[in-house]
Structures are given as structure tokens and as C-alpha cells.
């Protein structure tokens, strides 16, 4: 579900920025109009007719210079005041010892999210309770990335060795599309973010479900075989599946992969066919991503897909 990002209205932390942009935009448009009109005017009014005498040589007038120095300064003072206001409204402060509600870790090329209190771990698709303001600590596991969900507010770099903090709040339910916004290597283009904002009960229900782990191995021959293959091909070295011995931390957590909307950080819709395509050759789908091609046979792909689809 790829909702047009510009249709959803800005959330409470994004609105001050939009207002500032509107204000600055009007001022900029006015100045541009002035300059354009002046340029067009002089171009037509003073166009040479080929025969006129040499025009009067004007060397300058200090009063004019003062006017078009002081005038812009006054405009800028006004914009500066609006800037400070928008800064405070869109990026509220926080106490030095404020504990995060959500820790987001950027990786090449996926997003890890850890809900501190509940212990829920998510990847790429992050659920938020509508109307609640969460305090986020943003980190990076490798290079510099940038968290950007336009409707929810400012972007913020994820810098290795330098944790950053921001507030996150969605004030109406829906799917908010975002992306990494700092070039981070080969697959920077496919490091998309999905924020699902839902009413608090729905969110709690989701969080509860996230904490559940598969209690038994799947039935059905394909899925059971798939679980075996997951073990055999050492997928657990990179990926975690709750309730199993697979505890890898290098790639996204797969405990609930079956219920995700998209996979590979927004690269494709989560359908069995697409997942099978990915497993067949990840490098063909997302070249240079860190998941190697395991040269699986068609049968193995079918079985693994079946297993992963049971992880709802």
C-alpha cells in the first residue's frame, strides 16, 4: 500500500515547518516577482533602437544602496524570527536524561526499530499509536543514514558514533511513507520507511502480537521443509526468528515477516511470488545488498517461502 505522501495531512510536528515554508515561500515569490518584473521592464523599456544617443552615465546613488541593503536585512530579521518559532515547535527540546521510547538503528540498507518498554522489535515498518509523542534515539550500525518521513516532521541523520534524538508523533491514522535521505551506498534508493499510525488499542494489539513467537514448527510439508532449510543454509547467522535458535542480528528480524506489507525496505510488496523471487536471487532484486545468493533450487525456494509465510 503506497499512499501518496502528499495527500495525508502533516502531523503536529511537521505543520510548523510547512507554515514556515509557506511564509518564506510567499516572501521569496514576492522578491522573485519584483526582480523578474524589473528585469523584464528594463529589457523592454530600455532596449536599444539602434540610433539613440549615448545614455546618461549614472555612477550610483548611496541612498539607493542603503535602501536595498537595509530592506533585505529587515525582511531577513522577520524570517529569522519565524525560523526560531518553527524550530521550537517542530523540534521540541528534551531533558538531558530523557529515556527513549523507540530506538531506531539504521543499517545498510534497512531500518531496525526497538520499542524500549515493550521489547518489540520491528524492521522497516514501524507502528505508532496515534496522538502519542514518542522520543526516539537514532543510531547507525555502519555509515551515515538519515531518517525522513515528511508528513511526520524533520529529517535527522543517523550518524555512527553520534546518537541523535527526535520526537515522533502521528496525529491521524494511516500509512506514512518515508525514506533514507543521506546517501549511504549502493542501495540508498531502496531504504524506505513505512510508518503505520493506528489507534492505541490497535497499536497495543499489534505490539502484543509482535511479542508472540511461533510455538511450534509449522505443519505442512513445504513449510516444515522450509524450516529445515532455514537451519541448513545458516540463515540464522544473520536473521532472528523469535522462539527458535536463530538469533542473528545482522539482517532484519523475521519473526513476523509474513505480516509485513513490503520487504527489503520497501523494495517490493510482500507476496509469496515476490518473496520467492527474492530468495531465488537477492542480488538481482537489490544488487549489492548484503544478502548473498544461496543458489537455491526452485523447490527449495518454494519451501522456504512457505515457511516464512507462516511467520505472521
Amino acid at each position, binding site marked *: 500500500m503506497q499512499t501518496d505522501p*502528499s495527500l495525508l495531512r502533516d502531523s503536529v510536528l511537521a505543520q510548523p515547518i510547512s507554515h514556515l515554508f509557506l511564509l518564506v515561500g510567499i516572501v521569496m515569490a514576492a522578491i*522573485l516577482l519584483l526582480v523578474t518584473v524589473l528585469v523584464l521592464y528594463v529589457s523592454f523599456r530600455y532596449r*536599444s533602437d539602434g540610433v539613440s544617443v549615448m*545614455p546618461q552615465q*549614472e*555612477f550610483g546613488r548611496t541612498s539607493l544602496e542603503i535602501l536595498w541593503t537595509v530592506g533585505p536585512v529587515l525582511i*531577513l530579521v522577520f524570517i*529569522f524570527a519565524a525560523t526560531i518559532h518553527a524550530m521550537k515547535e517542530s523540534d521540541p527540546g528534551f531533558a538531558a536524561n530523557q529515556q527513549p521510547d523507540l530506538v531506531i538503528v539504521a543499517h545498510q540498507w534497512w531500518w531496525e526499530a526497538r520499542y524500549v518498554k515493550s521489547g518489540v522489535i520491528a524492521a522497516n515498518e514501524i507502528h505508532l499509536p496515534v496522538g502519542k509523542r514518542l522520543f526516539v534515539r537514532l543510531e547507525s550500525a555502519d555509515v*551515515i543514514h538519515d531518517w525522513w518521513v515528511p508528513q511526520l516532521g524533520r529529517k535527522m541523520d543517523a550518524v555512527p558514533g553520534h546518537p541523535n534524538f527526535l520526537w515522533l508523533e502521528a496525529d491521524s491514522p494511516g500509512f506514512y511513507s518515508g525514506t533514507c535521505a543521506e546517501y549511504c551506498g549502493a542501495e540508498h534508493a531502496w531504504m*524506505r520507511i513505512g510508518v503505520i499510525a493506528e489507534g492505541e488499542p490497535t497499536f497495543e494489539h499489534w505490539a502484543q502480537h509482535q511479542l508472540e513467537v511461533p510455538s511450534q514448527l509449522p505443519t505442512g510439508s513445504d513449510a516444515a521443509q522450509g524450516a529445515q532449510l532455514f537451519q541448513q543454509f545458516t540463515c540464522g547467522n544473520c536473521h532472528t526468528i523469535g522462539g527458535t535458535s536463530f538469533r542473528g542480528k545482522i539482517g532484519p528480524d523475521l519473526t513476523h515477516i509474513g505480516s509485513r506489507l513490503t520487504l527489503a525496505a520497501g523494495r517490493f510488496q510482500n507476496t509469496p511470488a515476490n518473496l520467492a523471487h527474492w530468495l531465488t536471487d537477492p542480488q538481482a532484486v537489490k544488487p549489492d545488498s548484503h544478502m548473498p545468493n544461496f543458489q537455491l533450487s526452485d523447490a527449495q525456494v518454494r519451501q522456504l517461502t512457505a515457511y516464512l509465510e507462516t511467520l505472521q
Partner: protein
Amino acid sequence: MSDVPYMPQMPATSDHVGATVEHEKAGLLGWVATVDHKRIGILYLLTSLVFFGAGGIEALLMRIQLARPNNSFLSPGAYNQIFTMHGTTMIFLVAMPALTGMANYLVPLMIGAKDVAFPRLNAFSFWLLAFGGLFLYFSFIAGGAPAAGWFSYAPLSEQPYSSTTGVDYYAIGLFVLGMGSIAAAINLIVTIAGFRAVGLTIRRLPLFVWMVMVTQVLILLALPALNASLSMLLIDRLMNGHFFVTDSGGSALLWQHFFWAFGHPEVYIVVLPAFGMISEVIPVFSRKVIYGYEFVAASTVAIAVLSFLVWAHHMFAVGLGHSIDVVFAVGSMLIAVPTGVKIFNWIATMWGGSIRFTTSMLFATGFLVMFTIGGLSGISFAAFPIDWQVTDTYYLVAHLHYVLFGGTVFAIFAGVYYWFPKISGRMLSERLGKIHFWLMLVGFNMTFMVQHFMGLIGMPRRVFTYPDLPGWAALNMTSTIGAVIMGIAVAIFLWNLIVSFVTGEPAGNNPWDAWTLEWSTTSPPPAHNFDLLPPIRSRRPLWDLAHPEDPDWKHGH
């Protein structure tokens, strides 16, 4: 055109010193071994033109890939190398050499000198550029071009994230270019300081020379920051250093501070000489003296000083803290003021004039609006919560192209159409020139105006493809079509250069009836530049000669 007899002020020197321009060899060897600033200037300009083609092809390849969502014309690896090389090429191998070439050619002529202070150092500077550029491009066939972006942020630019030698070629190539730029800066400063003809006080400097001089001071102080950064990056990469490797105590932010300490003055390095060319072109084709000379000159110094105080406006989204953001916002907003002063003075120069819209003047006039657009979007970034939304998006790509292309490149076009007659002795075709201009104006705006909107609806920069979200495909396709039109315009420009060089109308000394010293000698000038110099008693010696009833020096200028 005025055929005014000159009152000989003094004979220009009869040269007797050995290794000078009078004794240069003929043919290709003459060009390779030249120490004549005019030939070196032409070499710079030709080199810039070749790399403009390379950078332009890189741009077209990118736009073809981005014409449709989920396109597979270029692999991500190829795209990332190409966008890195596009930015690096355009700044270091096109803009800087073109402006250095113009400065090299024109400054001695405009100050009534025979050559620059150190002709051999001048040649050396050029060959450093040529070598550095070839070295950088060699990376394509030596394991891959750099793919960490033109500002090569750490730790992406470090091992193991950039494991080919691309970034090493980038660092070494740019280091060599930096040395050449510093050498050229020293040369030009000494030349302007000490080689001016009698009567040419600092206050009478043509504005192009004035702005070139301020630019060289910027180069002297900013390029060492780049060279220090590149040295540190190379030590990290080749000797397992830890400057910017965060896993072992290094700092990713330190790279950004150091790079932008260079990078911000750098954008003024590539824009001030452009302002200088505009300041020469607009008065001549408006038939009026520049309005507010002192203010245009002083605002240049203000911009230069401020340019060292705003670097962290490239880092508003990095998380430096509100206090630091505010400080840099103030400087960034302030720097708009002297820039605006120039725009208004240029318009005032046209006001009340008798304007001839030659191709040169068309580009200069277009520059006024295009650069204003870029400058205004820059102010929106200075209101940094806006930056928090639109930095690192196509809105920023739009901004930078409006100032660097709509600004610098348009000004270079204006300068080329203006001075080509002096350099080659022939006029460029006005017919082809006007087609070039209008195609370029349409194509450029089509390419980049829509990119403002692409950024506002969420498209980040430096992406090899994008999802099929509403509106993204249409805007990208529009931008690509605009880029193709720009390519056609450039092709027409190239054709104009070639055809006019061979069959253009002979230009004569002063086809534009201009007023600065370069127009008092032949087109092209003799090896020693001047046989005779007119008396210099004001900023416009040739005006004074042609208008003895109303010379500039009567107005105290």
C-alpha cells in the same frame, strides 16, 4: 565602433628577457610548451569544455535512468559512480578551470601587463589540472570510479564501505588539482598586486579583476582545508588511520566540518568570477557605466568574509544542536544581503540604458533571474526547519543547479560570447547564439524547476531509482526531457564555437565598443599584449578616449 587614435602614454616594454612569449615554438609543441598566459588560458578553457562534455554525458545518463520509476538502464553501482563523477567533474574540472582560464587570459590584459607574474608556474598549474583530471577519470578503468558522492562523506568513503580504489583516485586527483589552484591563486594575486600599468589604481580595477582577486584569496585559504581533509582520508584508507573511522574512535562529523570548511568557500570561488564577468558584460551592452561600483566591489569582500562563517549550514540535519544551527542560520541569511546588492546594481545599470541584446547580453540577463531563483531557494534553506525537510532532496538539487548552472554557467556563456572575439579574432554567430540561448533557457528551467516539487513531495537525492508514487514519474520525465533539450543547446554552442572559429566574421580590436584595456589591443592580442597603452585615468580608459567631453575621471571615477 570607434577608431580613436591613441595618445601614447608610454611604450609598452620592448622585451629582451629570454624565456618569454616572443620566442615560443610553432605548432603543437608551442602549445604544449607555452608559458604565455593567453595560450594557457585557452588550454584551461578547452580542458573545461572537454570535461563539460563528460559531465554533461554523465548527467544525461542519470536523467535517462531516472526518466521512469524502477528503471534498469543503469545498475545502482554504475549510477552511483556516475553521479559522483558528475558533481566532481562539474565543480573541479569544468567550473574552476573555465573561470581560471578566463582569469588567466583576461587579467594581464585588463591591467595592461605583458603576462602574469610567474609564467612558468602558470603553465605548471595548468598541467597539474590536466594531470589531476586524467588521473581522476582513469579510475573508471582501474577498478571503478569513486562512488561516495562529490563530498565523499565518511565513513562511507572509508574501507570497507568503499573498497575499490575509486576514492583513492578521487583523493589524489583532487589533491593535485588543489595544488594547481593554489599555485594559480598565488600567481594571480601577485600579478594583480604588482603588475598593473601606470594609472591603474586598485580603485580603477575592472570588476572582473577585482572579483578574481578576492576569489584567489578564498582559494588560498579554502583549498588547504580540502588538501588537509584528503590527506587525512588517504592516511585512513591507505595506512589504516583512524581519523574518520567511527568504529575505532574516529569522527564522521570531523570530515563534514573539514570538508565544508573548504566546500562552502568553494561555491563562492566558482560564483564570484562569474559575477565579475556579468559586471563587465552588462554595462557594455547597456551602454552605461556599472552602477554602484564601490558597492559591488565592497559586497564582494563581504561575501568572501561571510563565506568562511557559514559552512555548517550544510549540516543542519546532522544533529549539532539548535544553538549551533541558529548561529549558522544567521550567517547564511546575512550572506544574501551583499548578493542582493549586486543584483540590484546590475539592474540599475540596465535602467536608463540603451540595451543591445547580443547573445552575451541575453545570457547575462537570464543569469539575473536564474541566479535570483537559486539565491532565494538558498534563503529557504537558511530558515533551517525548512532545511530539515528539504535538504538531501531534489529541492536541494534544484537549488544548487540554479546557482551553479543558472548562475556560473550562464555567466560563463555570457563571458564566452563577449570575449571570444578578443581571443580568436572572430565573432561567434549571433544566429546560432540566440538559438543556443533560448533552447538553454527553456531546457534548463524544464529540467530543474520541476525538481523543486520533486523534493517537496518526498524524493531524496542520489537515488538510482524511485518508487512509482503519484506524480514522481511525470515530474522525472519532464526533467529528463528538459535535460535532453539542454544537451541539444550545448551541441549548438559547440557547433557555434567550431564554425565561428573557422569562418566567423573578423572581430577587429573592439567589436562591442567596450571600455576596458583588453579592447585597446588587437584581436587576438600580440604575444606581448600591447604595443601601446592608452592613458589610464579612470576605470574606463577607452570611454575617456572616445568621450573627451565627458570622461569618467571628471566624475571622480
